[in-house]
């Protein structure tokens, strides 16, 4: 499952943040997304995941093949680790949560409500969710926040296993995961606030922004 991104422009709050982005994410590939805070990494990932429409360009991958891991883990505090994982597994039609539990070293915690987990344990549970989606393309936004060195190792192992099985991952992170990966620096694609007119807006007016500015 290959994701090809052509001439993509994404906007936040109606204002372009990234323009003319081109890259490919092939099966077996890990792409590290780099860029300073506020440069549009999250906006890009949300657009790729299909949560918001791009203002221009094309994404070849079907959102059905993508899973998105955000800052927020989507965990329910009153549900146990097992219940949280089982829920996402059945939503995605996956039968077993065992590999996810083992992969992120959650075996001793399965019956604990996630409210009683530490920040790092919660994060591990959030990442374990990726393994029960069964989807080939992972889009991850700062996945290693609040993880200790050992847990980062677990995460890196999970990513390696995932790409070895033909999956792919696009990861926005500031740390070195120790994974064999390519880098995508979005710095050069930052939208020039003055160049809004070049973006063909979905209204069909090339000079759309000019109309307002």
């Amino acid at each position, binding site marked *: 499952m290959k994701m090809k991104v052509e001439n993509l422009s994404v906007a936040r*709050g*109606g*204002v372009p*943040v990234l323009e003319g982005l081109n890259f490919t994410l092939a099966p077996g590939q890990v792409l590290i997304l780099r860029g300073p805070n506020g440069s549009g990494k999250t906006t890009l990932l949300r657009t790729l995941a299909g949560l918001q429409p791009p203002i221009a360009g094309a994404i070849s991958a079907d959102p059905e093949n993508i899973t998105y891991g955000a800052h927020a883990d989507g965990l329910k505090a009153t549900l146990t680790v097992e219940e949280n994982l089982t829920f996402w597994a059945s939503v995605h039609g996956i039968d077993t949560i065992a590999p996810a539990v083992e992969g992120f070293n959650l075996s001793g915690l399965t019956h604990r409500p996630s409210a009683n987990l530490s920040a790092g344990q919660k994060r591990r549970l959030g990442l374990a969710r990726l393994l029960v989606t069964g989807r080939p393309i992972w889009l991850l936004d700062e996945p290693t926040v609040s993880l200790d060195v050992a847990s980062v190792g677990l995460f890196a192992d999970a990513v390696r296993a995932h790409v070895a099985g033909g999956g792919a991952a696009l990861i926005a992170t500031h740390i070195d995961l120790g994974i064999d990966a390519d880098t995508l620096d979005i710095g050069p694609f930052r939208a020039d*606030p003055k160049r809004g007119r070049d973006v063909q807006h979905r*209204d069909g007016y090339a000079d759309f*922004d000019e*109309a*307002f500015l």
Partner: protein
Amino acid sequence: MSLWEFANPVKFMALSGKVLPWVIALAVLTLVPGMVWGFFFTPEAVNFGNSVKIIYIHVPSAMMAINIWAMMLVTSLIWIVRRHHVSVRAAKAAALIGVTMTVIALITGAIWGEPMWGTYWAWDPRLTSFLILFLFYLGYMALWAAIEDPDTAADLTSVLCIVGSVFALLSRYAVNFWNQGLHQGASLSVDKEEHVADVYYLPLLLCIAGFVLLFVALVLIRTRTELRLVRLHRLEIRERMKDA
């Protein structure tokens, strides 16, 4: 040249700027004579006395209250389908005028109702429907006010306007049913058509035309302001982004 040309904010601003003074002039030229004619040069009605003359405000404002919501529905649909900014800003602009018209209709109705029926308020189907319409306007405007991002606000209020229209219509039928059901044969009829004689009819027509023109003038002014607000919002965001 198609009508959609004016969906472009620049073209709309240019044209509306030129048209606006003429619309205002026309509104004044119909509304003032209509009101003066209606208030001072029509005979007093036998049964109603002077109070009947409030129809020159009451009837046009009530008509506008409903028609403005209908216009908002159309412009909201245009935004949803074709995403023309002027359209949805016009809907927002119209809401404020619409709610004002609704309040005017309710208040003049109450003032008129007191000498006519001996009460300021009755749960007559028509009165009740207007009260409900007022609530719908309030909700629509409150949603606009609550959302910061202009495009998100435009999308959500349009969805609300469309769904709200269906429920407003349902409410109208429900209210008719409800009142007939409990108070068989309502003793108060607000049906003006029966009462209005020709002497009152012509100035009334003039007043209605005046209210329509007044609405067009006001909605143009408000829409222009709304478009400038969007522009201001975008400028602010860009400034913030330059700093980042």
